[in-house]
Structures are given as structure tokens and as C-alpha cells.
């Protein structure tokens, strides 16, 4: 990393906009914040007086909670607003709503929305920093960053690693961010899943698509399974969850093909017995709970960095 490095992103819209230096800076910052969460008094004054709005158009308790904990540990004032996309499109538009919010002068708006690009639209129309907490089938950058942090903690770096991502790539914003982030840091990403789950021209984003799931998992350093939505059966993308589990579910036998020290990951929540067997999810190689812990640290780092912080001022304690 360059010595006079400066994190220059006022918004976090996706990992597409982040260089390797940017990503490493976020992870380094997150590492210092992770220590805060281990203290008996888990609070620093860093963002005291700042207002952060959690603006969720889509239910996601896990992500919202993770951002909220991150904000509270930094002493920011947080507000949760939830709305349903369907009611919003009928009357007030996203921009109207955002401008109303803007009038209350928040410093950061964390947006979860079912439309890809909604955070970009917001960023063009309000003053606050926008953090994308998942948009449509596009990106979920904080999830991508926490995945990277988790892999780095165990493997040191991502350079040269073989990372397999199994499942519904086409509808996964986590995959969207992971593929970008992992390849930016020099990992080789292998994808497997039925063709109905593969987005067009995905190879051109630097990933290798495997027809046989075993080719993706063989010698992998990391195996990540993605959540399969029940409704994909009705969309005729898969015939049944059962058949999916048989063909692509991560079980011990499949994992035999991977490296001995393979990390098993999942963005959660897991459909146990569908995309992953329970013994694998809870097994020794699983780092799924580390992902959750790192999520708070990464989100603390993002809140801090978009407001212009350079060096985490955590040492003064709280």
C-alpha cells in the first residue's frame, strides 16, 4: 500500500469501486475495531453526535442488527426506518423519501433495497454518505468485506487461493461482491451450480464456471455455499430443493476433495440439509460464526471511514 494512502470513498456502493488498497485499508481498520468488541465495555466515542439511519426496504434482521451494533459501539445515534418497496413505488418515490430524510440531516444512510442500483440513485440525490447494505441482485459490499476479513484471518492473504462459491450465483448480491473482492485480491474464484443459477457472461468477470461441482471444490482453500431461496422452485430454476441438495449440497464426502485446511463459509441463514449439511455447517472447518463477528468490525470500519476517519482513534478507549 502506498504510504500516503487516503481512503477517498464517501459512499460504499460496491466492491466494484474498490481497489486492493481500499479493501486492505478497510480490513486493517476493521481489525483495530474488532478489539473494541472484545472489551468489557464495548463502546468508543468515535462517532458521538453522528446520526446514522438504517433505511431498510427489505427485511433483513441480521444485516440491520450488525450495522446497528456497529453504530452503537461507536456511540452514534441510530434510527431504523423500514418500508416496503411495493408501497413506496405506489406513492412516494425513493428519492422523495430520501429527500425527506435528508432534511433531518443524517450523516450516513445505510440502505437495503430490492432494486439493483437503488443506492447509486440515492447517492446522486442526497448529501449523506450512502452505504449499500444489499441492492437487488447486485452487491452487498459489507458482506463481501467481512468474508475477505474472515479468509485473511485464517489464510493471511487471498493471493493465489482457490475459492469455490456454490449455488445461486445469479440472484446473490453476496456473490456479486465476493467475486469482485476475491479476484481483486488475487484469488481464483470457481463457481458451481445449475446453469439456471449462472448469470450471463460471468466468466468475463474473472470467475471460472465448473459444470461439475467436484471440480470447483477439488483442492479449494475456501468453499462457500449460498442460500437457496425456496421460491426458485416456482420460477422453474430448480425442480426441487431435494434434488438441489443431492447435486450441489456441501457434505463431508464432497469436502474430502478440498484441501485439508479448507474453510467452510456461508452468508447465512443456512437451509440446513439443502445447501449445506448440518455437520459441515457446525464442523471444525466452518468459520460461519467468525463471519458474523467480523461483520460488526467491518461495519464499524466502514461507518468510520466514510465519515473521513484516517486512523482509528480507538486507543483512547471509552
Amino acid at each position, binding site marked *: 500500500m502506498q504510504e500516503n494512502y487516503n481512503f477517498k470513498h464517501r459512499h460504499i456502493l460496491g466492491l*466494484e469501486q474498490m481497489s486492493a488498497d481500499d479493501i486492505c485499508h478497510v480490513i486493517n481498520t476493521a481489525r483495530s475495531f474488532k478489539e473494541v468488541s472484545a472489551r468489557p465495555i464495548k463502546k468508543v466515542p468515535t462517532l458521538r453526535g453522528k446520526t446514522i439511519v438504517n433505511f431498510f426496504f427489505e427485511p433483513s434482521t441480521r444485516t440491520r442488527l450488525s450495522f446497528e451494533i456497529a453504530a452503537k459501539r461507536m456511540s452514534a445515534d441510530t434510527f431504523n426506518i423500514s418500508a416496503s418497496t411495493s408501497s413506496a*413505488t405506489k406513492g412516494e*418515490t*425513493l*428519492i422523495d423519501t430520501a429527500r425527506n430524510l435528508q432534511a433531518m440531516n443524517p450523516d450516513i444512510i445505510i440502505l437495503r*433495497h430490492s*432494486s*439493483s*442500483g*437503488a443506492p*447509486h*440513485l440515492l447517492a446522486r440525490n442526497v448529501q449523506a454518505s450512502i452505504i449499500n447494505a444489499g*441492492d*437487488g*441482485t*447486485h*452487491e452487498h459490499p459489507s458482506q463481501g468485506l467481512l468474508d475477505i476479513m474472515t479468509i485473511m484471518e485464517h489464510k493471511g492473504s487471498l493471493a493465489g487461493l482457490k475459492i469455490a462459491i456454490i449455488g445461486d450465483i445469479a440472484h446473490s*448480491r453476496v456473490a*456479486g461482491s465476493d467475486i469482485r473482492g476475491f479476484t481483486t485480491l488475487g484469488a481464483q474464484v470457481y463457481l458451481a451450480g445449475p446453469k439456471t443459477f449462472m*448469470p*450471463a*457472461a*460471468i466468466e*468475463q*468477470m474473472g470467475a471460472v464456471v465448473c459444470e461439475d461441482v467436484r471440480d470447483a471444490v477439488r483442492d479449494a482453500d475456501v468453499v462457500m455455499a449460498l442460500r437457496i431461496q425456496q421460491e426458485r422452485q416456482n420460477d422453474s430454476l430448480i425442480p426441487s430443493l431435494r434434488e438441489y441438495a443431492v447435486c450441489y449440497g456441501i457434505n463431508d464426502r464432497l469436502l474430502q476433495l478440498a484441501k485439508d485446511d479448507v474453510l467452510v463459509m456461508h452468508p447465512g441463514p443456512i437451509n440446513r440439509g439443502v445447501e449445506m449439511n448440518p455437520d459441515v455447517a457446525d464442523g471444525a472447518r466452518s468459520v460461519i460464526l467468525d463471519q458474523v463477528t467480523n461483520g460488526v468490525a467491518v461495519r464499524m470500519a466502514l461507518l468510520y471511514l466514510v465519515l473521513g476517519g484516517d486512523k482509528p482513534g480507538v486507543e483512547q478507549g471509552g
Partner: protein
Amino acid sequence: MDGLIILKGGRVIDPVNGRDEVADLWVTDGKIVASQAETPADAKVIDATGCWVVPGLIDIHVHLREPGQEYKENVASGTQAAAAGGFTAVACMPNTTPVNDNGSVTRLILERAEGCAARVYPVGAISKGSKGESLADYAEMKEAGIVAVTDDGMPVVDSQLMRRAMEYAASHKLVVMSHSEEEALVRNGCMNEGLNSTRLGLRGIPAAAESIMVYREVALAELTGTHVHIAHVSCEDALAVIRLAKQRGVKVTAETAPHYFTLTDDAVLGYNTNAKMNPPLRSEKDREAIRAALADGTLDAIATDHAPHSVLEKELEFNYAANGITGLETSLSLTLELVRQGVITESRMVELMSAGPAGIIGVEGGQLGEGAVADITVIDPEMEYVFTAEASFSKGKNSPFNETKMKGRAIMTLVDGEVKYRL
């Protein structure tokens, strides 16, 4: 001669009469007349030196939004934009509110068009309400003044209904225009399917959604012997079907729009809703195929699919934003770019924007022969300017070409020998 106008010293390009020469063009009583050696003292002389004098441009695919959505556009504003873009006539699509599926709506549109800056040729709906269920009253609409039928904006899903539409339209000497799209393959798609849709996380529409339907239309045209016209062709596969059909002698014509030979789906990056349209902007390979098809005759016309919307419909999440862009005032400049790049000749350009479109809907215009109606466009091919949506005559400001540097534009438009626009 009363009210004689002489367009002096311009390059007259008139492919129908095989003309391309520097000459004077004489107009009187709304007609082109033979020029004489002597200039009468009372003649109004317009200097056209350095300019092209061509048959008035005709756009057979525009949305004027009246009746029903006048906040987006009306006949008056749309025809003003047409005249400013060099068009002397436009054919307007029936997806108004109410739909133009009966004689009274047709008559209303034509009443509104009286005294406007360009001729208006209404196109009637294929089916009542464009619902795709039962045929609209073609005879009544034809009597009122329609020149074609289409359910543009929506594909005719039922193949049997499309067959009947073609047969019935033939009985009334109407061309059937097809908005070719296989609905099930489009379902909630909002841009071209490919790397960019994957990068943006937007639902893609494969080119096959268009070519499948074009194949159906061509097959039905062959079955019924009717002339079918394929609207807004955007992809290589559809062109291949049309090319083959033409070789087989099927009565099929086709148009494309300037955005398909100018832009690719890269224009959508950044979730630019001003680049959202239907069919969507495609790949570079498709763009090249469109350019080749304009040159080789597979495509018969350039039409704009001028689709004005208010900012309310465009400043939204990409998947909720309305489809369509304005096009009347950028079409000529974008097409002139093809001429400068050597893709098509000047005369082919005039054919694609005037005689070709006139022939498809069977209206006057498209040529400058003696006795022809004096619908004329004067083009300065060298004039450089920056197009701004703000300065546009259209109520719609939804253009991906806003703030784009352009070269060449219409500086004067005459309809029936009357100056309707002068820069």
C-alpha cells in the same frame, strides 16, 4: 407564379429520381415545379449554398402521447420537435389513453394535428385496447385516417390473433407493424442480457426474445401473404431472420432506431435510466450488424421510437423506470455520423429517412420530382452544435444524448411548401 419559393444553390439529393446535384429547387402552391432560367422578381429566394436539400424526412415510429398523457408530450409539441429534427411527417403509435383503437380517437389526433409543424399519420391498434384479445375496427379507423396497425409497446402474444390481424389488415390495405418480443423470455427484464446486466445485477433480456418473435411474424406474413413491418430491430439474430425472409420473397420490411446503431448497453452503466428502452440497447456485435443491415438493404427505414417521458417516470430505481428515449431531434445528426463514417452514402441516408418510410406506410412524400408535394428538409451537414434536452421542443427530456456534441442538423423544414421550422 404565386408564392414562388426558390431554394437556391443547395445539393439536391433525391434518390427516387436519381438526383444528386447542386441545383435550385422551385416550389409553388405546395408543389415542386420545374425551375426556369429566369428568377421572377417576386420569388422568395432562400440561399441553400453548402446545404443539402432533401425530401422531407419521415419518422414512422413516434409516441405523441395525446390523448391521455399530455404531460409527457402532445401533438403540438411532438410535431414541433419533429420539424426541428428535419421531419415533415410522423406516424404516431396508438398506445395513448384511451388507445387509438377506434375512429373517434383517430379523428381527435388528426384534429389536434391541424396547423401543427409536421404531418401526422395515426397508426391504429391491432387489438381493442391493445389487449391482444380481439381485433380493433380497422375499416372505421382507416376511414378516419390511419395508415397502419400495431399494438406497439406490447407484443401480440396470441399467434392466432396475429394471423387474423394480418389477414384482416390486408383486406383494408393496411400494413401490420410488429413490436416483436417473446413475453415469457422478457419477464421483468430491464436491459440486454450479457456481461453488463450481470455486473449491474439487473434482469437481462436475451436477444432471442426478439428474434423468436420476428421469426413468427415472418412465418405468418408468408402464410397470409400480408406485408408485415418489424419495428425497432435491435439485434443481429433478428436481422438474420429478416434477411432470409426477404430472400425468400416474403413481404417484410424493417426499421431500426439511431440509438441501436450508435450506442451499446455500456450506456446503461451507472444505472442510467435515460438509456433504458425496449428493446434494450444491445452488444457491440449487434450494433455492427445493424450498421451493416442499413447499408445492405435488410433494413428499410430509420425510425426514432421517440418516447417522451416525464422525469417522474425516469428518476426511479432502474427496474421501475419507464422504457424509452426521445429521438426526433437527434436522429438526423446521429444518422449523418454513419454517412461520415462511410457506412452509408448520402443518398442511402435519404432513402432510409424519407422514401423508405413513406413506402412502408404508403403516404406521399419521399421525393422531389416535379409535381411532388413540397415537403422538404434543408440540412447543413457541417454545422456543429451541442444537443441539450433542455433546449429541445419535446416535452420529454429523457435522452441519452443530452450534452452530446453533434455535427450536421436540419436548418429548415418545409411542409406543403410552407416553412415550418427555421433554425
